[in-house]
């Protein structure tokens, strides 16, 4: 059965469900839908982005309380009372407040290491819960009752059955938006977060922005869930917005499959049904009343994380034949290219670079220039400081002293994203790619700066033309480096040498004028090396500048126009390949001195 058919069956089931099941089960399905909406946000955040939040229940609470307070309309201050009484205003204000809170929280924590966001949301989730319980105008611990019913097109939605369609319509809409977002340029940037910030930033992705985007989306989904909850229940109190509920939402995402959009729906269904069942079963089994399902959920979570970290969704999809992978990429007009500089023009100039790590001097007073249309090779024994130099030049790290000029502009203190925008692109000595993503998509990350469409067009898939052009460009680069046959395979399945080649394609996809390659030939076979050398010669003839770190001397000497030799952080020789090969200091560094 094709996935499309399964989706059709699922939609049909959703459509008829309220007419065939009992009132009780409709309510249960409504709760599943409300939870799925929150869990969906956590899928984006946790499974896709590698962040997490325990405070989603608090965002649900914000949505619920905002609409409760505004739509009841009692006790509103005078200037607000004319606006009162409308659930739609409640939704708008709820979304606004949620967005502001999430933005501020993100601003505070997203620049720090990954674990500060969850800890921040933990504290925030607790604070908001206590705040709801203690603010008199929100009804304190008793809450607010008498929330008006929602009405759509003049038709009041007072029953669970009619509300069902609203909830599931919103859930399916959110699934659609999320899937669209992930399948776009912005989505690739978000998925790149898991591969580490360094790579994404070097490809021009503003990772803090990407993190903020998914945190905001997750918070807003939760807020909408709260808004629906308030108008379904017609009553709110602080209990369902406490920290433990926040943690349960996370469990739903993880159990269902945190890496998959549909995992949220599966997880929400499993946990909600299980909770219902356990809340009946356990108290009578244990002879005491209380939330004993916590014990089961806690243990279940540990087992899931230890045994099946991907959750239930991948297990379910394995039961269905996989969608055949696309075999061709649609042709599309080429993306605009930057004009390459005149051959011979100085692209990169590093002046007396010093880099210290504490007491260790990794680079001492290094000078280096790379011109357009030349291959400059940086060689030296292991630990000579070549990769450190690379990092200083590309903005991954900043030099302690000295300055770097790129295309005539001082870039010493710029970060790698800003430098990438100027036209420098690089590969990494230790391959940094996203093993689960296809070769094509990995390469397309390199083209991030060549697109401009943002999150909203991506969610609505209004950026298909740009996306086609980006993918076509990525496909051209994949083909160019000779990986055409594995274009749709997972990048992690390639041999190490090919993964390095993939990184070159990714760097090329950025349309650079200067290419920094960190050991590109390592792990390649003889013929592959020849092909790589051929490619680099071609790029050189087009006017690109190439800075190369490499250990394979045959490769370097056959290709480089100039060579710089480093040892212990210092430059010991510079010149044409033949000159360097005869230099006594170089011979001593490589072969040891003759006593």
């Amino acid at each position, binding site marked *: 059965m094709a996935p499309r058919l399964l989706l059709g069956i699922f939609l049909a089931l959703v459509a008829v469900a309220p007419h065939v099941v009992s009132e009780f089960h409709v309510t249960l399905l409504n709760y599943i839908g409300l939870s799925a909406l929150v869990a969906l946000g956590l899928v984006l955040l946790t499974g896709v982005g590698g962040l997490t939040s*325990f405070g989603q229940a608090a965002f649900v609470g914000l949505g619920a309380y905002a609409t409760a307070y505004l739509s009841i309309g009692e006790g509103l201050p005078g200037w607000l009372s004319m606006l009162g009484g409308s659930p739609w205003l409640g939704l708008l204000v709820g979304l606004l407040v949620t967005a502001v809170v999430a933005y501020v929280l993100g601003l*505070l924590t997203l620049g720090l290491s990954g674990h500060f966001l969850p800890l921040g949301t*933990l504290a925030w989730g607790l604070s908001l819960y206590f705040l709801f319980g203690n603010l008199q105008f929100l009804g304190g611990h008793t809450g607010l009752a008498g929330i008006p019913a929602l009405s759509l097109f003049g038709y009041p939605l007072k029953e669970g059955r009619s509300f069902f369609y609203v909830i599931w319509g919103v859930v399916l809409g959110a699934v659609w938006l999320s899937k669209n977002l992930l399948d776009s340029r912005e989505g690739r940037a978000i998925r790149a977060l898991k591969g580490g910030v360094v790579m994404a930033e070097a490809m021009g992705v503003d990772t803090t922005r990407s993190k903020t985007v998914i945190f905001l989306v997750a918070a807003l989904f939760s807020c909408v869930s709260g808004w629906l909850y308030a108008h379904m229940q017609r009553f709110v109190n602080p209990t369902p917005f406490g920290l433990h509920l926040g943690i349960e939402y996370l469990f739903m995402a993880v159990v269902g499959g945190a890496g998959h959009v549909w995992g949220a729906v599966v997880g929400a269904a499993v946990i909600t049904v299980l909770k219902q069942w356990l809340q009946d079963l356990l108290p009578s089994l244990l002879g005491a009343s209380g939330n004993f399902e916590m014990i089961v959920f*806690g243990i279940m979570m540990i087992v899931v994380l230890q045994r099946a970290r991907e959750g239930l969704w991948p297990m379910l999809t394995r039961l269905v034949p996989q969608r055949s992978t696309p075999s061709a990429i649609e042709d599309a007009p080429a993306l605009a290219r930057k004009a390459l500089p005149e051959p011979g023009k100085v692209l990169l100039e590093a002046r007396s670079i010093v880099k210290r790590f504490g007491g260790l001097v990794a680079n001492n007073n290094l000078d280096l220039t790379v011109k357009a249309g030349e291959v400059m090779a940086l060689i030296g024994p292991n630990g000579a400081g070549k990769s450190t130099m690379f990092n200083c030049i590309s903005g991954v790290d900043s030099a302690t002293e000295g300055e770097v000029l790129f295309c005539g502009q001082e870039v010493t203190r710029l970060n790698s994203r800003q430098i990438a925008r100027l036209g420098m692109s690089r590969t990494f000595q230790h391959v940094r790619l996203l093993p689960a993503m296809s070769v094509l998509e990995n390469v397309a990350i390199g083209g991030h700066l060549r697109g401009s469409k943002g999150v909203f067009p991506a969610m609505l898939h209004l950026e298909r033309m740009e996306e086609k052009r980006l993918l076509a460009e990525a496909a051209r680069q994949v083909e160019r480096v000779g990986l055409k046959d594995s274009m749709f395979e997972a990048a992690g399945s390639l041999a190490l040498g090919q993964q390095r080649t993939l990184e070159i394609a990714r760097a090329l996809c950025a349309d650079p004028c200067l290419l920094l390659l960190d050991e590109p030939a390592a792990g390649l076979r003889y013929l592959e090396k020849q092909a790589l050398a051929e490619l680099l010669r071609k790029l050189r003839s087009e006017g690109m500048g190439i800075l190369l770190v490499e250990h394979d001397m045959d490769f370097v000497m056959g290709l480089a126009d100039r060579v710089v030799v480093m040892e212990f952080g210092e430059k010991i020789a510079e010149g044409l390949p033949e000159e360097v090969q005869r230099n006594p200091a170089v011979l001593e560094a490589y072969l040891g001195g003759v006593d």
Partner: protein
Amino acid sequence: MDLQIALLLGQDGITNGAIYALLSLALVLVFAVTRVIYIPQGEFVAYGALTLASFQAGKTPGTLWLLIAAGIAVAILDLHQVLRARTLRKIPRIVGWNLLYPAIAAAVVFLLKPGELPLLAQIILALVLVVPLGPMIYRLAYQPLAEASVLVLLIVSVAVHFAMTGLGLLFFGAEGSRTPAFSDASFEFGLLTVTGQTVWVLGASLFLIVALYLFFERTIYGKALRATAMNRTGARLMGISTVMAGKLSFLLAALIGAFSGVLIAPITTIYYDTGFLIGLKGFVGAIVGGLGSYPIAAAGAILVGLLEAFSSFWASAFKEVIVFTVIIPVLIWLSLTTRHVEEEE
């Protein structure tokens, strides 16, 4: 507010702060050694306090059953592993710690009638039951995932917290308990009256901090833990078992947690879920130190205690809100002062 009230609140704050400080030290320790953000630390506080309260009420605490069950689970997993790897010489140790020890503990609890023992013996017995749960939980929940990302370990922590809170409710019920003070003495210093319990808490905290310092500076195991915290791979190459380091840090954390519970139980009524909030306050302290510095974490925790005491006077309903929003200025400060370095995952 007059000076007398201020002094009283200050005393309260420092007493609670000392306990938060102990917890924050344990949290920093566990994070440094294992990269686990140890949310369940607070449950050990509650388990310690409520186990002691159970003894005093003449009941058998549920933690005994948990110790036996966890011991059996660990023994099954470890024996399975040992039989597969054919390292049979490890068997006596596994059986001893995980099956024999809980059995002996159970025998002692049933034979001695802890309700009639002196307080000190009750405390020791409570620690005997609760502390070994630390390394057992490490073995069951964390060890199979020791190489996972901080994020996964954090989610495990939350899951353990969930399970332990539920079990706490099952073992001790929803009612809170308070244990008698260690001493009824009180000392007058002009306006200030210092209770015996305050002296105990401060003295015991100070003692534990000094003991920890000596442990890390002077003993080979302490140094092994520090080495693991600095560089896991490097430590392993030097023959330090990261499993041992993990279990040891969880043992210390459980000891600190349970002992803190015993200390705080005469001051505050402890419910099955109180530990979580107490533990989180330790966390706020630990975050002040960026989850890395012991002295700053301890100072931060004492600050949290003081803040809590004074805000309970001015705005008691918003006490918790105020304490947990302190984290915001701390985070601002951290994000302004730390340059982000990518985690190695």
